[in-house]
Every structure is written in C-alpha cells, then in structure tokens.
C-alpha cells in the first residue's frame, strides 16, 4: 500500500478543532507520507514481530527512513467488489453471498466494509461503514442480471476504498470477461498506481484472459486466485483476509526523490532472506 497524502495526525487535529468550534480558523500542516503494505513470509509462512528497523525501503533507488511498521491493530477497510451479472445466478450466487457473509463476520470492531456490485451497471450497495449488518443486508438484496463491467467496477472499488484511516483492502470477484466497461484496463491500472489499496481478485472458472486482474493485483501488491469450484469461496475470502492481516504497514516520508512520476519501490528485510510481497511502486502527479 502506497500513498502520498496529508499526515494522519494533521487531519485528526483539524477535525477535532472543527467539532468544538467551527467558526475558529484552523490550519493544517500537510506533509507527504508513503505507505506500503508488505507481506513477509519465510517458506510460505508469515514472519511476524518485525520492527521498523528491520525494513529497508528504496524509493527510486534512494534509501528511505522508515517511520512506522506494524502488522497488528490497523483497522481494515474492506471493499467487496462483486460480480452480479446474469451468470452468477443460481448456486454461485449462494456461494458468493455466503463468502461475503463469512468475511464480514471475521472483521473486527474497528474495521469497516463497503459493497460495490456490478453487472453492466456499477452500483454502490453500501458505503464504507462499521455497520456490517448494513453491508450484509445490501449483499442479500442484490439480484444478478446483465453483462459484466469488471473494469469499471474495479475502478469504483479503488475510489470507494480511498480513505485516510485504515488499510484499504479491495476484493474483486468475477466469473466472466469484461464486456461493458467504458474505462480501459490501462486507465484503471493507472489509477491503481496512485491508490494505496491492495487488490485481491478471485476469478471463478478458468477465463481465457486474466491479464487485467493479474496486472491489477500485481500492481497493488495483492494476489489473484483462480478457483475452479465456488464451493470453497468462503475459504478463499477468509484466506485473503488472513493474509492481509499478516501484512506490515510500512510508512516513510520520501526524501531524495522528485515528487512527480513513477516511484519504483524495493522492500527488503535487513539481514534476512525472506519473501516479500508489496506493490512494485507508486505514481504521483500526471
């Protein structure tokens, strides 16, 4: 997860002042902060207990000073982007709803969730909310119809997941190829490079061309799951959540690099040969 944005502290101070006395002028100090979600594993097993000093981050080849790295107690903003096109009707719909419920059940008190559904129509089932009952209700009320705007919906998921608090986790589910989107895959990938969301995608059935979802998940540091059977969809959703919870949130204030353009990232754990999964970079400006 990567972003350049105002610091969390500055925003919370301003919000607090405004709630007390809106007429008092307030000032916020903006500084840029990059956040990266990092999964560290050793032979497939998550490595926990690392501290800021354990991480090495190169931004366009320039070593950065890590300010913050932790893996627990960071609220998750889970955005479910679910295919509700006609082909989902029937057994698959039941599996999908069930998987959504299971995932929502596993969210914690401070976590929030949102629901974006799509056929050719991209629709907001629920905004980001900690009222998970509302999200479940929205999930149960959607009926499948129409064709597939996977790319448009993925874009909507990235935007809905934008938030200054918590870690945005976008889970995209689809069983078909895009047939109706206006946006192109490349344009959404461009947005993904500017987003701090981590996208996981689940594709039911072996589709002929998974390039878009593969690129989207790769660019955001997530993963693509291709499932033959949807009977175990709940388990897949849970494994995504579990993996996401094991990730470290690494933050730094970039220095020694120009602000605009593509920033290639390299993340390592100091002195150890461990597997790292993180986004390959981020984009700022035009």
């Amino acid at each position, binding site marked *: 997860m990567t972003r350049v944005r105002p610091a969390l502290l500055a925003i919370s101070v301003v919000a607090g002042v405004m709630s007390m006395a809106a007429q008092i002028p307030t000032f916020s100090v903006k500084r840029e902060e990059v956040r990266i979600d990092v999964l560290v594993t050793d032979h497939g097993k998550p490595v926990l207990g690392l501290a800021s000093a354990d991480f090495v981050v190169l931004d366009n080849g320039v070593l950065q000073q890590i300010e913050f790295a932790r893996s627990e107690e960071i609220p998750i903003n889970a955005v479910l982007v679910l295919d509700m096109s*006609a*082909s989902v009707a029937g057994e698959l719909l039941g599996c999908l709803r069930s998987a959504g419920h299971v995932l929502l059940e596993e969210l914690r008190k401070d976590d929030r969730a949102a629901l974006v559904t799509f056929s050719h129509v991209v629709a907001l089932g629920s905004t980001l909310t900690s009222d998970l009952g509302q999200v479940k209700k929205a999930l149960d009320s959607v009926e499948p119809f129409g064709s597939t705007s996977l790319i448009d919906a993925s*874009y909507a998921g990235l935007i809905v997941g*934008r938030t200054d608090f918590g870690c945005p986790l976008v889970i995209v589910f689809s069983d078909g190829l895009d*047939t109706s989107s206006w946006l192109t895959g490349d344009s959404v990938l461009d947005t993904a490079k500017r987003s701090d969301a981590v996208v996981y995608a689940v594709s039911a059935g072996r589709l*002929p*061309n998974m390039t878009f979802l593969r690129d989207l998940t790769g660019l955001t540091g997530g993963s693509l799951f291709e499932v033959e059977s949807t009977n175990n969809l709940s388990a897949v959703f849970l494994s995504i959540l579990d993996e996401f919870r094991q990730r470290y949130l690494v933050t730094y204030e970039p220095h020694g690099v120009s602000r605009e353009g593509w920033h290639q990232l390299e993340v390592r754990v100091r002195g150890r040969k461990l597997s790292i999964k993180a986004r390959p970079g981020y984009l*700022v400006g035009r």
Partner: protein
Amino acid sequence: MTEGVAGRISRDSKGVGGLARRTVLNGGLARLLVASLIVALVGGTVLSGRGEPAHTPSQRAQADRDAQYWLDKLEEWRTAVARHDPGVLDEAVKTISRFPMSDLRGVVNRVKELARWVVESRSHTPGSLEQHWLGLTDDEVQHGKANRVLKRGALLHTDIALLSSDIWPPMLNYDPMVVTIVDGRTVGREGGTHWELARLLLDSVYPQPSSDEMVRQWYVATTAYVQNLHQWGQAQTNLRRALAVFPLDATILFLNGVLHETFAAPESQNALPPPGFRFDFGPERLELRQARQFFQQAVKANPGFPEAHLRLGRVTGLLGNHDEAIAELRKADAALTDRQLQYYAALFLGHEQEALGHTDAAREQFERAATLYPNAQSPLLALSHLAGREGDPAGMLPAMKRVLTLPVTDARREDPWWSYDVAHVRNAEELMAAMRKVFGELSR
C-alpha cells in the same frame, strides 16, 4: 454472463516443411456444390442423382427412381416456398427444416440449374417441364426470369435460419463452424446452412444479383438482424458474400467496418476458441485497421454518412491517430441529430481530447455526454478518471459519487455505451420487416 460473440473459426494445421499453415474451414459447402453441379445436368432435363449413364435395365430403373426422388423433393420444396408466409413459423418452415442436409443441397442445386436453364433458354416455348418444376408463368419463361422463385426460396430459407432453432437442432457438421461464445468461452455451435442456401439462391438472380435492389435489401436486412443478435460469425459469412456482390455499397462497407470493429473489441479478442481451433479474425490492431479501411470506403461512397464518420473517428483514435480522430468525430458530430449517436460522439471526443492531454476539452465533452444521458455511468467514470490523470485525487470522488448515486435498477440506468456494438442496427427489426414485406409481395 456476457453476450455471445459467434466467430468463424479455423483450424491450425501443419503444412509442408512443418511450417504452421492456416486452413480456413470455409470451403466445404462450395466444394460440394461444385460436385453437385457436375452431375446435375447429366441426362438432359432428367434430374438424376448420379452422373453415370444408365446402360442396364437395373441401372435405368435406379436412374428413374433417383429422378423421381428429386422431382418429389423439388415439388415439396416449391410447394413450401409458395405457401410460406414471411416471418411465420408455418408448416412450410417445419417441412423444409426437416430435410436432411443432402436433400437441401440437392434441391437448391437443382433449382439453381433450372433457373439457369430458364435464363439460357429465353424465348423458349412455354409449357416445358422446367417451367412446371419451378412453377413459373409463361411470361416469366419467355423473359428468362426465375427470380420470383429464387427470391421466395431465399426468404423461406432465411426464415428457417431465424425461426427453426426450436424445432430442429443446428447442424453440427456445418462448415465453416460458427460457435457461440458466452463469457469468453465456447458453449456451442451454430448452424448456418439455411443462410448459405438463401445466398446461393440469390446468386442466381437474373440478370445479376449486383443490379437487383431486392438482393441488396436482403443482405443489408439480414446482416443487420444477425448483428443485432450478436451473431457475428453469421454476419461475417453473410458480409463476405455481400461485399463480393456489392463492393461499393456504402451500407455494406459500413456493416463490414462494424464487424471488424467488433472483432477488435476485448470481448472478441479475449474469447477462448475450442481446443485446436482459432477464431477467424486477427489481432486487435489488424482488425482496427480493417475496420478503418471499410469506414473510409463507406464515407467515400457516401460522404453524407455521419454514423460512418463517427465510427471511423473512433477506430482512428484507437489506432493512435488522435488529431485525425477528432477531425472525423467533429465531422460526425456536426451532422448527427440522433441523441444516442451524439452521446457516442461526445464520449469519443472526450476520450481523444484526453489522449492528447486536453483535459478541459475532454471534461467538456464528458459533461456533454452526461447531460445527454443523465443516468449513464460511462461519462461520469470518465470524468472521475480524468481528475485522477490530472493529479487531482480529490477530484476523482465527486464524479464517482454521481455514479454511485445513480438509480440501481437496470431499467433506469440508460447508458448507450452498453449497446454500442449493435447501436448501428437499432432498426434491424424494421429492416427485416421491410425486406420480408417486399419479398412476400412476390406472387406465390
């Protein structure tokens, strides 16, 4: 589930020296036709099924039985043609749709030969067997015209192709193979025999099909109709012949352009053919170039064809020539009066302006599209994305909020972008009805 794209496919095979060679599976029917023609006229006017002379009594008896068989079949076909009501799933449709493939081809080949005889034997005395078999009037025979029977026959086979799927499964051995694609996967095969038979009959129209407006009307109406059903494979086969007959017709050139534009779209490009086969279309850029070529020819044939300018502008932009695309789109935009087409023009102009980095002009066009169709999500998504491209992350949200507060139900979410692939044939039903009316008015 996505809507299906039916594409003609070809098989990869190894050629001489082990080099990959592409064998297009489209010659089967034509080869059989040639073979039939060779044998059809043996024995003069006797319609024998075999080409060997009958020497022995048993051979002669067999030849007589064959001739009678074909006479019966021909009579059955001619009666069905005469009785068929255009667009109706009547007994005529059911009867002929139950004919085995060999009988269908045999009958049509004989009809064509008889029609040729009528033409070549103009001014012959009325009352021949051929006249009887085709049910022609004395006047028709004297003027060498069997067109009425050929056209009514084509109408019958057209209606069988369109109406008989419920009563007769598609032929599996039809060549070229046309497949149905759902969600990028092949789910079945389509029959195309009756389309081909209709075309074969129209090929024999006198003096030549290319000078016959009804034939042209048939090609335009049927192509529009199958394109509207997303039967791109059938449309491709139809258009191949249409183009050979009417190479300079603006509408047929335009329909060809749309076909290739569709083949360039991700829905076609990302589809998965059956194992061992490949689709009978090329990679994206090749298809776009072909589409552009056809649209260019269409606007050359008919400069006052704004919809062709619109699509020419779009594919030109997709090929990366944005300035040229904008010029074409503006030309279209100035002439378009249809709201749906104006919407496309605005969307595409916005897209091209964005590609050139003209964000204000792009925003203006996307806003115009959003005004034309306030419940359409595409221009709002475009506006949101445009803000992001400008490096204004905060600006992405307002347009997205507009998308997410649009009505959820499909019926109230009118976005013409979703039907762009068939927008050019939104009058397909009317075209088909008009064609059926004209063909149906021919005497029985």
